[in-house]
C-alpha cells in the first residue's frame, strides 16, 4: 500500500500531465483523512499540492486513510464508498465529480 503523500503527488502529476482536462478550473479541494489533511489547489487548471488544511476549501472529502487509499488505488469504488458513507463530501459536489473526471 503506498503512502498518502505518494497518492496525492500522483494526483497532482496526473492533472499536470493532462492539462486539457482542467482548463479554466479554479477549485480548492481539502482531504481530511485519519489525523492528516491535504489540500489540492487548482488555479486556472494548474494544481498545487499542500500538506495541511485549506483556509476556505470549495470541496472537502472526508474518509479514513485506509478507505481513501483503497479508493485512490482502485480497490474501492468511489460510488460505493460514498453510498456506504466511507467517503463523505462537504461543499460543492459538482467539483467532487469534476475531480473524479480529472483522475480517470
Amino acid at each position: 500500500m503506498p503512502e498518502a503523500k505518494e497518492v496525492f503527488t500522483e494526483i497532482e502529476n496526473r492533472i499536470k500531465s493532462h492539462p486539457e482536462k482542467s482548463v479554466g478550473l479554479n477549485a480548492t479541494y481539502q482531504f481530511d483523512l485519519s489525523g492528516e489533511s491535504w489540500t489540492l489547489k487548482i488555479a486556472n487548471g494548474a494544481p498545487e499540492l499542500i500538506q495541511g488544511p485549506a483556509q476556505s476549501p470549495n470541496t472537502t472529502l472526508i474518509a479514513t486513510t485506509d478507505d481513501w487509499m483503497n479508493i485512490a488505488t482502485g480497490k474501492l469504488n468511489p460510488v460505493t464508498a460514498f453510498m456506504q458513507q466511507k467517503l463523505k463530501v462537504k461543499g460543492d459536489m459538482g467539483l467532487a465529480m469534476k475531480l473524479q473526471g480529472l483522475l480517470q
Partner: protein
Amino acid sequence: MTDVSVSSRSTSEAPLTERQWIRRGELLEAARGVFERDGYHGTTVSAIVQAAGLSQGAFYLYFADKKAVFAALQDEMATLLRRRIYWATRDEADARRRLEAGLDAYFAYYEEYAAWNRRLTIEGLAIDASFERRQTDLAQTLAAAFRPTLEQLGVGETALAAFALLGIAAQIAYWQHFQRKDEASMSAAALAQACASLFLNGAPSIPAHSPQEGGSHA
C-alpha cells in the same frame, strides 16, 4: 453510430447536491446489478429504477437512457482496473514480479466484478461503436502499462505481446469464472503466476495446481 453521453446533465447545469449525488450513485449501483442479472438487452429503465427505489423521473435527471448508464459504468469500472494495475506494479523493481503483480491485480478485479465483466464482453461491446472504442482505449492503456515490463523481459514486439498477454489473461479469467467445471478454482495470485509462466515460458512451464492452492472465489 453516435457516441453516448455519460450523463444527460449538461456541464452548464448547477452542481449536484449531496442528495442528487447519492441518487446518481444509487442508480449506478442498481443498474449494475440489473445489467449483471438480466443482461444489457434484458434490462429496462423500469427495472433499474425499481431496483434503486426511485422514480422514472428521477432516472432521467441523471441519465438519458440505459445506454448512458451502461457507458458511465464502463468508464467507472475501467478507471478502477487502471488504478489497480498502476498501483500494483508501480514500485515493483523486478520485471517478472511486476508482470505477475499486474496480472494479479487484473485477476482480482475480474473476480470482484466477474458478472459485470461477462456482460460487458458478451453484450456491451456490441451496443454501438462507442462502447468498443472505450474498451479499445482501455486495452491500449493497459498494453502501454505492460510494454516496458515486457521489454525488460526481453520481448521484441512489445505491442503485439502486450495485447496477446491481455487476451490470454481475459480468456483465463473467463474460463476461471464461467467455463471451468469440476475443478478447484485458483486464487488471483495463482492465476497470475500461471498466466505469466504460460506467456513467458510456454504451457509446459505452468506448475501443476493443487486444490489446496485454490482461492475462495466462484
